[in-house]
């Protein structure tokens, strides 16, 4: 009788340990999955930032920003130039402000991260950053 009781206590102890292990495992898997998603997002952000900087520099050096964007395979839709790079997309909006002594070109490059995790809180694309760019072009007298 005493032996049976001892065996039952051991069984309950192991069941509690297994339950605790399962709970810990669930938490750990979630933590690792979040860490992985964060790293993938950070990678996309790094690449998007490098690409956005390249676009900003190319636009600064170009005489015609629209032609340069077209050359870089951006597509114009509703006044905004867009291009998808897989994990992220770049949106370029710009306007030219004529002044007395020349023209001020102002642009904004917005990067969006394409969510691939269906369980994410927001299934739509998430904004990563906005990179403003400008160029002043003197009028030729």
């Amino acid at each position: 009788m005493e032996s049976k009781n001892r065996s039952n206590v051991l069984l309950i102890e192991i069941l509690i340990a297994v339950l605790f292990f399962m709970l810990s495992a669930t938490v750990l898997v979630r933590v690792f999955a979040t860490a992985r998603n964060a790293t993938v997002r950070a990678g996309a952000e790094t690449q998007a930032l490098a690409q956005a900087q390249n676009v900003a520099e190319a636009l600064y050096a170009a005489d015609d920003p629209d032609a340069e964007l077209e050359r870089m395979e951006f597509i114009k839709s509703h006044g905004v130039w867009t291009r998808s790079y897989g994990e992220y997309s770049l949106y370029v909006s710009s306007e030219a402000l004529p002044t007395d002594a020349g023209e001020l070109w102002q642009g904004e490059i917005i990067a969006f991260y394409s969510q691939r995790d269906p369980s994410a809180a927001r299934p739509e694309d998430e904004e990563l950053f906005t990179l403003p760019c400008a160029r002043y072009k003197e009028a030729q007298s």
Partner: protein
Amino acid sequence: MIGKRRSVQHSMQGVFVFVLLGLFALMSTLMVLLGAQMYRGTVDRSTANNEDRVLSAYVRSMVRAEDARGAVGVETYDGVTALALREHIEGTDYVTWIYHYKDQLWEQFTEADYDFDPDGGTEICPVKSFEPTLDGSLLTVRMTDEKEQACTVQVALRCAP
């Protein structure tokens, strides 16, 4: 008969406990292995991100620091294409060469009068290729790191003639 049945039941309980213990040990090991693998993957990706950023940030900051009228150029000596950043310090012309040589990115700071010697520089980091081109005021550098990942850096020269 009753004693025999109790004995069988008792040994079944013992086996069940051992199976449960075995399962626990197996799952624990799997969990540790899985966790280690995921951690390694996360660290690898993080390191790759940092390396990408370091390479492009290095080129960008070097060009930005030396951006003066006519100071940035691309020159080829003995088959080695180098990014040449010239500066004038206390009456003497100096040049900083950045180039790919022996699967490394090298930097060499020397007086402009000296001949270019690729062995005389300092190794910065491992790269497979480094191809700078200058088109008007837009400097484009195409690089491939040691993991064959391509990276392009574009810098518009503010002081370009």
